[in-house]
């Protein structure tokens, strides 16, 4: 039976503590001023709060920390960057840029914990090769060598492992890379969801190539290489819990060729990012905050497949936040946008590339969306996302 709860109500300790934490910052807006000024004061206060040193408040890791959104960023900055701190790590790009004996290298790593392992359009093996290849490609590097670390669950069928490795071999050949070293561990039944994979990769950065989101400046064009959200929605549906059927497949693909064609066609590429977990929205926010600019995109111009849109509407999620695995976002000098787009259209993986927006000066650090409707809204980072383990 439910108690009447007549006793003294309990207090929520965590809330009181959070409030004490902000005590010196929380003050009511000055009364008596016009509402729009008071509102602006609050918005300014929020801006300051957002710029404060990140701190992980939770005691335990939650799924949000792995989603690619705000919680992930806070974790990376407050725990990893804070401890490892060095100039090579600080840019927090998809790959680190290293100089060794005069050679410019890009170095990256990614782990793959997707469930289910096999899904329309590919499997964990494809993701593992393409994902790391793409992180190198968007650094302006020619991907060369990968490592592959396997964590296998006791009882996992060897046939499935062979299938995964077969996919990796084919993907590596397609991307022009070789797997040159690796590792295998086995953990007890019940852990590792069958198979977890980690790949690290190294590549050589082209001469004169200097990509980085920090380079974005007002007037630049924002280009996406194709329809967004395919991978994330595929995984959600493949998990079978939602009882939804649709003809959607993962977009996993190696983007090295597309990038090479783009960089050869125009020197105006400021930055490239591979849209994975957190989706295109996360990348746009990274650009806005790294370069201190505003990114303004037009909802009408963003390519989304009809079925992805249908599934997203049904589930109440926004394709902008849904993971891709074979799409990139390019920030290009506005004057060169035409050439960049043409170069992408010339490549099979870029056939549906589209200019989706521009970089502006104001308001800095914010991503804005002009809706189909003509209104404007903010596209902020989500805290986490409702799609568990999609890459």
């Amino acid at each position: 039976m439910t108690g009447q709860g007549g006793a003294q109500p309990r207090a929520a300790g965590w809330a009181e503590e959070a409030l004490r934490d902000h005590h010196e910052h929380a003050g009511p807006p000055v009364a008596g001023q016009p509402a729009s000024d008071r509102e602006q004061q609050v918005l300014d206060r929020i801006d300051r709060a957002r710029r404060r040193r990140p701190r992980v408040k939770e005691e335990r890791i939650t799924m949000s920390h792995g989603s690619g959104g705000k919680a992930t960023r806070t974790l990376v900055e407050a725990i990893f960057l804070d401890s490892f701190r060095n100039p090579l790590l600080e840019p927090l790009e998809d790959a680190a840029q290293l100089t060794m004996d005069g050679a410019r290298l890009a170095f990256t790593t990614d782990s793959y914990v997707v469930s289910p392992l096999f899904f329309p359009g590919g499997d964990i093996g494809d993701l593992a090769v393409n994902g790391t290849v793409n992180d190198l490609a968007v650094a302006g590097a020619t991907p060369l060598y990968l490592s592959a670390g396997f964590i296998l669950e006791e009882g996992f069928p060897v046939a499935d492992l062979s299938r995964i490795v077969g996919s990796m071999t084919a993907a590596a050949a397609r991307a022009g890379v070789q797997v040159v070293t690796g590792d295998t561990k086995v953990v007890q039944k019940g852990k590792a969801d069958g198979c977890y994979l980690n790949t690290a990769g190294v590549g050589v950065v082209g001469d004169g190539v200097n990509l980085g989101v920090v380079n974005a400046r007002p007037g630049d064009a924002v280009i996406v290489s194709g329809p967004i959200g395919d991978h994330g929605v595929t995984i959600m549906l493949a998990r079978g819990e939602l009882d939804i059927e649709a003809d959607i497949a993962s977009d996993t693909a190696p983007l090295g060729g597309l990038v090479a064609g783009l960089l050869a066609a125009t020197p105006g590429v400021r930055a490239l990012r591979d849209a994975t977990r957190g989706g295109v929205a996360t990348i746009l926010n990274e650009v806005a905050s790294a370069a201190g600019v505003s990114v303004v995109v037009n909802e009408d111009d963003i390519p989304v497949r009809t079925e992805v849109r249908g599934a997203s509407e049904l589930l109440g999620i926004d394709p902008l936040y849904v993971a891709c695995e074979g799409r990139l976002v390019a920030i290009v000098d506005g004057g060169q946008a035409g050439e960049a787009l043409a170069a992408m259209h010339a490549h099979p993986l870029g056939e549906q590339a589209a200019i989706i927006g521009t970089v502006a000066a104001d308001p800095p650090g914010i991503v804005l969306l002009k809706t189909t409707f003509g209104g404007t809204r903010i596209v902020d980072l989500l805290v986490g996302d409702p799609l568990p383990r999609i890459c």
Partner: protein
Amino acid sequence: MRFVDEFRDADKAHALAAKIAGLCEPGRQYKLMEVCGGHTHTIYKHGLEDYLPESVSLVHGPGCPVCVIPMGRVDDAMHLAAHDDVIMTSFGDMMRVPGSSGSFFDAKAQGTDIRMVYSPLDSLKIARQNPDRRVVFMAIGFETTAPSTAMTVLRAAAEGLQNFSVFCNHVTIIPAIKAILDSPDLRLDGFIGPGHVSTVIGCRPYEFIARDHGKPVVVAGFEPLDILQSIYMLMLQLAEGRSMVENQYARVVPWDGNPTALKAIGSVMELRPYFEWRGLGFISHSALRMRDDYASFDAENLFQVPGVRVADPKACQCGEVLKGVLKPWECKVFGTACTPETPIGTCMVSPEGACAAYYNFGRLRRQRVQEVTIS
């Protein structure tokens, strides 16, 4: 997408905006409340306020069924979930709502078996697939969702399932609207009426608002043009001195609602004598519980639920935001102590909460559309 895209046409929006502006009496301020959290979400998501003249402002109402769940009930749900053999199932909206010691998400991190579902039927499926576990469905929502919960219980009963129960937190919309009307701090001119709740309860229940309080009500759809058209219809009533209930969402909402759905609710559930609403206090006959003849599907009957009240943090002003007395940014802790990442109150954590909508979408220096009057 059919029945969606046609209602998102920008040109028609401009036309409606001009008509709305044309109906504004010079010097008069208009305050219209959208009751439903889904409407708040659409308004911010599509930047609809950009279409309204300065003199028309929208006040966000309490129609967010997640927002009104008190922390104590979340604690109760967590207590249920903590049983070793229980699988707790819940809509995604509830996963991050904090109780006095964390949310479902946090509990999941500590090993509690809590699973997100899209439909109560998914919860039933989990119960069928796990006969040795007890499955509890955290039922939330207004009258929109209650029929689905009821149908699911009827199905469970028909199948003779022994391991499925509902922790019922359904609330009803009319008492919430009454609380707004009785609030001395608020002077509203009209209501954008709930859309999907009305498919179940119909439009008649709102008649007392127009008749006894003299405020027009327009039941509205969820696409941007639906909302703009509803605002236009409200302004027209105000300009013509009428106060009636009108149905803009007639393509989906039948005037008399859905009798089958109401019957389903009635056979499985009954009104509680009173229920605590976060921010609004105790309201009588405002929430549903399982009827005695369905006691074997009532989690509150099968389990011992603590029922301890949790006081809202003093600085939390969710109540005033829910009543529309405060705008989200007027709350003292908005955006600083209370953010989507670290929510203090439910208005920030629920995807339909006014604070979440404003923080995630609307947090901009607004430059309203210039008043365009074509006379």
